[in-house]
């Protein structure tokens, strides 16, 4: 098993007729993702890449039995799109959209959890279980089937690390981009607990960055609850205070959220921290060997 998504995942695309939505629908289909429906209000009856379009998520779900939604709608409409998916009972909602207002997201996250849906993102590159399915915008070709779980707050940095893993024959069980915003539906801790329970995942790579306390909370959680080897990478050591580094959530605010604090938290929890994307593989190998030795004892 992988986490969150697998070959049976039935995906509906919200915003399927838009530029991003239609482009990535084609890429996901190429990868083998089961795209069963699309939603764009007022465009019911059309087809995008052979995928039927509906006016509402409710109807799309009734017709297609989709259990996962991926959202590509513009930021002004994205909170509404997430709420619509949650209200229609979609189990997993992956929101790619960047630029959603923080106070909107606070309300949305609250409602999503009341409805019992799981939200990944916003400002996420998506979720991929290599060889099975891809729900998002990441390049499929750099991934490889395997047993390393990857969880990250960014996009291209994750691709960089994943490519290094794949080249070194360390395939991935699932890669999850939890998103670069300050308010996101699923935290590192949420995803770590899924990886810990997933029989296919043998080790975890966590890619964090400045801003918030999600990494610090992850460090504590790993020490207490995670038995699998974890390697962390934290970026933003050069970031000045009170300046946003691209991602809405990447900001050291009121002295909180520095890379040094996060690295220290991992080190205190005895979790190895990579200096750069280039040495994640080396550290992970060493951890896996140690783990192997321990199991052989």
């Amino acid at each position: 098993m992988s986490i969150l998504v697998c070959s049976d995942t039935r995906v509906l695309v919200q915003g399927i007729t838009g530029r991003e939505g239609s482009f990535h629908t084609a890429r996901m289909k190429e990868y083998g993702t089961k795209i069963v429906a699309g939603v764009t209000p007022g465009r019911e009856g059309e087809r995008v890449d052979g995928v039927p379009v509906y006016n509402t998520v409710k109807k799309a779900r009734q017709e297609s039995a989709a259990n996962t939604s991926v959202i590509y709608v513009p930021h002004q409409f994205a909170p509404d799109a997430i709420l619509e998916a949650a209200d229609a009972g979609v189990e997993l909602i992956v929101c790619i959209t960047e630029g959603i207002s923080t106070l909107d997201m606070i309300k949305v996250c609250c409602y999503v959890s009341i409805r019992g849906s799981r939200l990944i993102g916003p400002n996420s590159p998506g979720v991929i279980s290599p060889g099975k399915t891809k729900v998002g915008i990441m390049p499929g070709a750099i991934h490889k089937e395997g047993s390393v779980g990857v969880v990250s707050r960014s996009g291209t940095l994750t691709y960089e690390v994943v490519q290094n893993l794949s080249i070194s024959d360390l395939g991935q069980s699932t890669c999850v981009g939890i998103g670069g915003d300050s308010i996101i539906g699923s935290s590192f801790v949420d995803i770590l607990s899924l990886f810990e329970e997933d029989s296919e995942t043998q080790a975890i790579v966590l890619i964090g960055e400045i801003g918030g306390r999600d990494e610090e909370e992850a460090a504590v959680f790993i020490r207490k609850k995670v038995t699998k080897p974890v390697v962390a990478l934290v970026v933003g050591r050069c970031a000045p205070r009170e300046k946003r580094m691209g991602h809405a959530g990447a900001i050291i605010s009121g002295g909180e959220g520095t890379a040094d604090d996060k690295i220290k938290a991992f080190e205190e929890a005895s979790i190895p921290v990579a200096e750069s994307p280039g040495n994640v593989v080396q550290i992970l190998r060493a951890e896996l060997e140690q783990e192997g030795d321990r199991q052989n004892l």
Partner: protein
Amino acid sequence: MRIYEYQAHEVFSSHGIPGPQMELTRTARGAEEIAKRFARPVAVKAQVLVGGRGRAGAVKIAQSPDETHEAASRILSLHVKGERVREVLVQEALQIREEYYLGITVDRSHRCPVVMASPSGGVEIEEVAKLTPQRIFKKLIHPLVGFQNYQARLLAFSLSRNKERATGIADILTSLFRIFEELDCSLAEINPLVITEDEKLCALDAKIVIDDNALYRHPELSSLGNIEAEDPLEVKARQRGLSYVRLDGEIGCIVNGAGLAMATMDLVKRYGSEPANFLDVGGGASKDRVSSALDIVLSDRKVKAILVNIFGGITRCDVVADGLKEAITRMKRNLPLVIRLSGTNEDEGRARLAHTRAILAGSMDEAARVAVREGKQ
């Protein structure tokens, strides 16, 4: 986006939060006139968008119009953390009995607003949090229920048992929360909220930071746009759709993706230099954006070498390379340029840049090391 103190005071006053008598001016002469009209001691405060103006000597108390002139003239000649002081706010100086802190921000871990109150006002709240955390009272606010009167009372009574005072503080908290929601703030803060000798509540300072992602809902606020206080290169970059932050180092960085950009900067530091900037050209790294990015980085005179790090995922490296090649031929400054392309079609991408003046690097580590070395020559 942060707005100026005087603008935040205007917002406060329109929501019924009392403040001192105050006026804004751009000249020392103007400040003197205001002090004359007020006919009492005043505080002269620099209007800047960065913190730490007190420590920079940009806030002064003046007893007379003459002193006000002198104080304003000195403050108007200052830079606070690089930001030139263009205006000062002249406020009546009050006789103060107590100083409180009130603030509202977003608690990221709990995904909700948090309202804070402290009897230790007038100092930075981070300091209070560090030294005497028990003196900060906090209330997490349910996103769908909102801030309730009992919560305002709870916080107000933890600051003062005096019924009138507590009622006044609770009302101010309620107004502050309304502002926080209406303006899509990431921070709304009064520090200090004072009790005067004649037992009146008054917001001496006012701080509002608005969530950039919500600015589209507030066209009225972009007219408060404080572009002239910003770094001109940052403004130019934003107009071209690039995410750029100017820093103090020598290595200009051009990267696609915020996380990868930070990782690249960290490597520059690791190899013994400092990045001149953060710059994210966006995941797709289109030709126009790469070209604009080169322009921006080249306009920064501190830059001694340029490091381009692009991961081509959905966008292929050969396409990115074509864009880069065109931009390179238009480069006006002869700086060392180190390029690292990785991902889809990376070999084709490299081949297209082979006969340009760019130095091609195989890995991120190598690219950073070479850029730092070139920057030192």
